[in-house]
């Protein structure tokens, strides 16, 4: 394994994080917030450590899928630990496990919090919390690819390990240009949301933080009650942007280059919108009597559905109190998740569509056992290799899911709490049901459970395998052996 290039990437990731951390520092400096100096101290420390790591570009810059996965997963862990330090050192979050939980939840765009209330927090810390969503949404390595010139061709492996979805395509031949286009779209949409929110009477900093949370499909709110006390206008703006950030970014690229026909033909997006419409219909029918007017019921239904399917996790109402059928629909939406190639989490619409189409194909084979047919997406046959990968992904997802539920349930909370806590973290949503519902938080779990949930969040964000490979002994044995071998020679 090419360990030198991985170290080099760590160095750059630290540098980028150090730069990002200057933003909350500046905000704290202007507002004279409590403890803002810690951002500068941690940023300086990260920059210092990065110097020897990325001092010289390694001569061998080739790396394969393995290196891509390892570099990505380890970078995310490093990023989270460094990102948690200001919270911990300043005492804003006194326990390290809690600070790490909050940061992992931020970078993975989960939005599950251990804080009972956030309004008393210094604004610069609140800002950093929301900013981690924005960084994690598109991915820090994609950012790295966009800004740092990396020669060689295998960097698609980095992007593949970090980007959500079963298949990572490029818009344009070069990874670097693709990464730039992605970030330009991302920045543009975020900016539009900020402007629209400011029209609704939100102040600039609040709208930026809210937009960060929406753009990364994160879900850290800036008020204790998330979105319940905001005006319907703001709730609608946020709801629509949540759906938009859950769309496959291909559509924006195609719109940008005026390929309208192709843009509206993306099959995954049809299903995504269909699922949203269906879920809204069912929930609206069941909750319309709980609210004063049908329009209020509609607002909350749309907000909640888009919040859950895009894996954001903002809440405008406590859905814990809604009828059970609504909760079941929301739980299903948690599994479904957003589109591939978006900033959202979950299993992803494409995967589910392929899985369901495979069932149809299997049934056809029961009628005509010799029948040859292929699953198709966007009118093109899906390669067997892709179908296989999706099946394995689904099974792995389920295995990790139930093992996590088992580990969490050692604490003996009720089933709905345990089940939905894992569901909400692994799909990067945020709030679950019962004790971890929209008005509660995750602080009551013990440290062990919190680490399990952190693992789930990272596994979910990195699409399982890049994280799992870190735990495969073969990775280390091979590297160790080749090192020993080199030394022996």
């Amino acid at each position, binding site marked *: 394994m090419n360990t030198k290039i991985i170290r080099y990437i760590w160095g750059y990731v630290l540098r980028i994080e150090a730069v990002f951390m200057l933003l909350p520092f500046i905000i704290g400096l202007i507002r004279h917030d409590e403890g803002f100096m810690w951002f500068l101290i941690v940023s300086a420390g990260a920059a210092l450590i990065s110097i020897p790591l990325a001092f010289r570009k390694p001569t061998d810059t080739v790396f394969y899928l393995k290196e891509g996965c390892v570099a990505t997963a380890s970078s995310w862990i490093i990023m989270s630990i460094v990102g948690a330090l200001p919270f911990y050192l300043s005492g804003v979050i006194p326990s390290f496990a809690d600070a790490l939980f909050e940061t992992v939840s931020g970078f993975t765009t989960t939005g599950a919090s251990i804080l009972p209330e956030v309004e008393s927090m210094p604004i610069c810390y609140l800002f950093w919390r929301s900013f981690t969503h924005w960084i994690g949404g598109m991915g820090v390595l994609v950012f790295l690819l966009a800004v740092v010139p990396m020669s*060689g061709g295998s960097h*698609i492996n980095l992007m593949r390990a970090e980007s959500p979805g079963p298949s990572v395509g490029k818009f344009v*031949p070069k990874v670097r240009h693709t990464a730039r286009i992605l970030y*330009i779209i991302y920045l543009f949409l975020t900016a539009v949301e900020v402007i629209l929110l400011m029209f609704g009477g939100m102040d600039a900093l609040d709208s930026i933080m809210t937009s960060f949370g929406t753009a990364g499909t994160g879900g850290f709110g800036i008020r204790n009650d998330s979105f319940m006390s905001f005006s319907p206008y703001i709730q609608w703006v946020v709801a629509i942007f949540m759906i938009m950030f859950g769309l496959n970014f291909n559509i924006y690229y195609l719109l940008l280059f005026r390929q309208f026909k192709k843009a509206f033909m993306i099959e995954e997006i049809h299903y995504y919108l269909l699922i949203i419409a269906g879920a809204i219909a069912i929930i609206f029918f069941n909750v319309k009597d709980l609210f004063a007017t049908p329009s209020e019921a509609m607002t909350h239904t749309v907000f909640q559905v888009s919040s859950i399917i895009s894996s954001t996790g903002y809440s405008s109402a406590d859905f814990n109190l809604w009828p059970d059928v609504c909760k079941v629909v929301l739980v299903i939406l948690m599994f479904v998740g957003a589109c591939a190639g978006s900033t959202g989490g979950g299993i992803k619409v494409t995967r589910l569509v392929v899985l369901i189409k495979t069932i149809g194909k299997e049934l056809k084979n029961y009628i005509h056992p010799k029948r040859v047919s292929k699953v198709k997406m966007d009118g093109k046959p899906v390669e067997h290799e892709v179908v296989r990968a999706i099946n394995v992904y689904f099974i792995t997802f389920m295995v990790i899911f139930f093992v996590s539920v088992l580990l969490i349930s050692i604490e003996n909370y009720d089933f709905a709490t345990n089940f939905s806590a894992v569901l909400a973290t692994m799909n990067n949503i945020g709030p679950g049901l019962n004790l971890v519902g929209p008005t509660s938080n995750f602080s009551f779990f013990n440290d062990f459970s919190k680490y399990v949930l952190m693992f789930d969040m990272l596994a979910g964000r990195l699409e399982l395998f890049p994280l799992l490979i870190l735990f495969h002994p073969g990775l280390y044995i091979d590297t160790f052996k080749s090192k020993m071998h080199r030394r022996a020679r």
Partner: protein
Amino acid sequence: MKSSTGLKVVIIGCGKVGATLTEQLSEEGHDITIIDTDPQKVQELANLYDVMGIIGNGASLESQNDAGVDKADVLIAVTGSDELNLLCCIIAKQFGKCAAIARVRTPDYSKESNYLRERLGLALIINPDLEAARETARILYLPTALEVNSFAHGQAELIKIKIPDDNILDGMTISHLGMNITNDILICAVERDNEITIPSGSFELHKGDIISFAATRKSGKQFLSKIGFATRQVKNTLIIGGGRSAYYLAGELLRRGIEVTIVESDRARCELLSTLLPKAVILNGDGINQDFLKEAGIEDFDSVVPLTGIDEENIMLTLYTKQVSNAKVITKVNRIGFTEVINNLNLGSVIYPKYITSEAIIAYVRAKKASIGNIETLYHLFDNRVEAIEFSVTDAPNVTGKALKDLKLKDNLLIAFISHNGVAKIPSGQDMIEDGDNVMIVTTHKGLTDINDILR
């Protein structure tokens, strides 16, 4: 968002040549899209290089649209089929404004390649088999050389030789050579123990070195005979295998008055060859049967070229021939990598058709990128580590009109010859480059696109 440096290149066909082109062009920083019907091939290349892959038929409008042919600068069609390559180019010409390059191998079309190119508006038609045959033939005219590349329409050549034991060059410095033997030649590159040097005057040659020198046609031969090499062209050649390459090679050799014998196992092919090449002797039999080769008189030929189409067989035949005779053998390697292994086998001259194709295309692509002047020819020497590039110089005031010794050239770069009014000359420090000259550069720097790049 748009890159200002790279060209947009679409490569259709991900076979040997397609892969070589993808590797070399992506190293030069172009935006490359590859198209092939085989998803696995596309995937493999897309994993290795920073390129976009499209799965589909390259001649279909849909695939070309996906690949953005309408905005591409160059389209290169190198699928296995000539007809498909031509069709790809025709469709691309209708669809966009790119320069189209097709690989065409069948003799039926290659005779008409100029007509096809002009009528279809193509930028380049490449026939690797024909080019490989020409390169083989050039070596057979000068069999002591390992490799002969021609520049300036055959005016000048770059000749590669290995210094044998007990040669007068052993232990001689380059400046001594210039003063005492000849100053009509210029040693451009030396390979010793797998290291490449662009030598200066104090460099001392040793036996076993592989040297590459530039010379005009006549002075090259004179130099070789002065240092004790034979310079006669071969009298007869045995070609083992009767495929397309053999046909092209036989044609080239017969035109030069070299006797050709072809061994081919397929009866029908033999009959066809005997009508196409009436002057050649066609033997019907198995080319890898030792007894048959003995009967054909392999020991008596002064040159042998195995062209069976299977690399391993070719290498085997070369090793066998080296055992039974002193004939000059040229090995053609189509597919397999392991260049270091092949180099260590001491096969003598080895020809790689896939590089011949990609060299011509890369020369074209670089010339298209250059703002001034033009690249006429480009060769990759010593396993891609040295480039020899011939520029035609137009409107380059930075390099023209000054004595060469006053130009601040890059390190590891030599001006090997200047061709003025069609007369090639090995330059000295007093010579100068003028507008309209052709200049050949030998360098270890990669990716030079125009003549100004030679300056520091």
